[in-house]
């Protein structure tokens, strides 16, 4: 008797669990719907402002997904992308063109496992096009899934080769439907070595400090060193750090005693700001050269811009640029989120506009299947030229890698000043 009763109880428990699970999925999707735009009735809660869009939304909206670290240590990047993409989506919807978006950004905590979960949550939501992921290693985890489901994705900032190639060691097996809005890492390494070797007046002995658990940083570093050897640049010291390390005194002391007069920092602006401060504290005078990750340093709350005086960087975007596109973007972003946008935000903004441009050119409507949208977008992306915040005449190759020209700037009196390339 006991057994029967037990079976009943156990079954009931399992059923309850699975029911909870099913209703859970319902909950998740319905609640995301309430926060983003619902297709026909009203405009969204989170976008809020646009009312003109309803006139053009007859064909339904494209469901644009994406994931990034919205919590945890890398949250600053994910939130920048989320905000800027939302801004672009709102603008596009407000213009009332043929292409309208509904945007859903999920948290992946900069973790492969969570990125896969986020991808599947988005899939359940009905995602049609995607911003892929913000960071590289989660991007590499979801790329094969995008390939399997033939969903088009363009990552604003996942710059590692592993995001676009299945076998990144040999650069073969390109997914073909994953595109990058940012530079690939090797590209920047080459450009930096080129610049330094043709400007020997900056210095000739190079010290590099890079973050060796970061795809972006290591990718640039590896290519830079290979290229530097060919171009006759002398790399006298290489220091690394990982995780949330923020003590660079040892690396700086060693760079100084190695006699380095150029410090190459292929890293993001947060650790870079600490390095600048610590170098200054120990009285180490050195020319600093950065890459696009360095952009954002001037707008950090509380940063003493004097420390960045004379820093060179290669960047496709600068928040101080004087063209109308950048000015409007920066002003709108600032008024909406109270912060100056960084390079991640700019890439995300461009990525959304690039998708919109391609969708429009292909004459896509949102009732098409993901595979149709995907093949149309791939066709467009490999043939179109795009003008955005992060570059003009931007093109993509069939592997999904972007081609755009980095510009060298130097920081003078707290603003970027362009220098001859």
């Amino acid at each position: 008797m006991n057994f029967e009763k037990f079976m009943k109880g156990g079954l009931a428990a399992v059923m309850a669990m699975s029911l909870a699970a099913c209703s859970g999925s319902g909950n998740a999707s319905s609640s995301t719907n309430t926060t983003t735009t619902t297709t026909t009735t009203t405009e969204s809660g989170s976008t809020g402002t646009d009312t003109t869009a309803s006139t053009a939304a007859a064909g339904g909206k494209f469901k644009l997904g994406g994931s990034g670290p919205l919590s945890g240590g890398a949250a600053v990047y994910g939130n920048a992308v989320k905000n800027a993409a939302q801004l672009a989506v709102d603008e596009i919807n407000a213009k009332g063109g043929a292409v309208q978006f509904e945007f859903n950004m999920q948290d992946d905590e900069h973790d492969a496992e969570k990125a896969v979960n986020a991808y599947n949550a988005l899939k359940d939501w009905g995602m049609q096009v995607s911003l892929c992921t913000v960071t590289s290693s989660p991007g590499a985890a979801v790329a094969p899934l995008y390939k399997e489901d033939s969903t088009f994705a363009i990552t604003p900032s996942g710059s590692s080769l592993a995001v676009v190639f299945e076998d990144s060691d040999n650069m073969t097996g390109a997914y073909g439907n994953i595109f990058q809005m940012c530079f690939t890492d090797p590209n920047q390494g080459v450009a930096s070595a080129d610049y330094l070797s043709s400007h020997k007046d900056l210095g000739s002995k190079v010290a590099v400090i890079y973050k060796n658990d970061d795809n972006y940083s290591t990718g640039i570093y590896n290519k830079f060193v290979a290229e530097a050897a060919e171009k006759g640049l002398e790399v006298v010291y290489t220091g690394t750090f990982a995780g949330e390390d923020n003590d660079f005194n040892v690396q700086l002391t060693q760079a100084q005693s190695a006699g380095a007069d150029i410090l190459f920092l292929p890293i993001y602006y947060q650790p870079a700001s600490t390095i600048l401060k610590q170098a200054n504290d120990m009285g180490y005078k050195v020319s600093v050269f950065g890459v696009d990750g360095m952009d954002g340093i001037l707008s950090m709350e509380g940063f003493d811009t004097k420390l960045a005086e004379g820093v060179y960087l290669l960047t496709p975007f600068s928040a101080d640029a004087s063209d109308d596109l950048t000015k409007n973007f920066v002003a709108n972003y600032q008024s909406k989120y109270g912060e100056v946008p960084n390079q991640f935000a700019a890439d995300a903004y461009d990525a959304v506009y690039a998708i919109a441009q391609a969708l429009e050119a292909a004459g896509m409507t949102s009732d098409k299947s993901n595979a149709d949208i995907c093949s149309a977008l791939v066709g467009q992306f490999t043939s179109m030229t795009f003008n955005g915040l992060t570059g003009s005449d931007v093109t993509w190759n069939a592997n999904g890698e972007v081609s755009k020209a980095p510009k060298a700037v130097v920081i003078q009196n707290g603003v970027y000043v362009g220098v001859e390339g």
Partner: protein
Amino acid sequence: MAFLSYLINGLSLGSVYAIIALGYTMVYGIAKMLNFAHGDIMMVGAYVAFFALNSFGLPVIPSVLLAMLACTVLGVVIERLAYRPLRQAPSLAVLITAIGVSYFLQNGAQLLWSSSTKVFPSVVPAGSVQLFGGQLSISYLTIVTILICIAVMICLTLFINRTRTGKAMRACAEDKGAAVLMGINVDRIISITFAIGSGIAAIAAVLLCSTYPSLSPTLGSMPGIKAFTAAVFGGIGSIPGAFLGGLLLGVIEILSKAYISTQLSDAIVFAVLIIVLLIKPTGLLGRKISEKV
């Protein structure tokens, strides 16, 4: 000369670890719990000090006092709401709750103050003392950090050894049951311990952020673990132990970075910890407690 400069850097980093470790060790000694949220309380202190200095433009001392006040209140409130209901629960339940509090503080800070990194202004004027004809330079900040650490340590020792409350704290650490019988209000003593530990964390926060100015919601987690290690290193529950453990940990970390490998410094720090614990199973200055059946 390079060695001396590394050593002094290590002492400065170690001083910060030591101050955080003091908080850990006090709470452990009296409440017998590992307060994993300690690093995150420190993070909150750093933000409070940042806003006091930058947004309200307060001078340094009032800012630090404000941060200490905020941390003290936060520590007491957390103890009251999250830990006190678990006074009778197994220690692991309290440990998990502390982790929950740590998640809560990190994510709350992110919502309140955004995830963008802020740059903490140095509270000590830039510049350095030149020794040996300029071969060795020690920044004012380093000197101030080490001095404050010593001052905190001395004040705390005097407080524990000389005052009535300190005596009551020692009694609680020794035997809670007997302390109650002697008319000591154990709940109050534990609250005071949290208050002091958290207040000290605010000092550590300001010093830490003056040296490493990146301010973000996850700021407290790594120094938190390091300080916990330091506390165990010196013998958890012992105040001079936490001081010694913190200093040694900082020095070992910097020296192994300088002379062995920047990548492996964490592994080396932890390996040293393991060796010390194998030789002295209760840490450097920990007391050997005979167990009762």
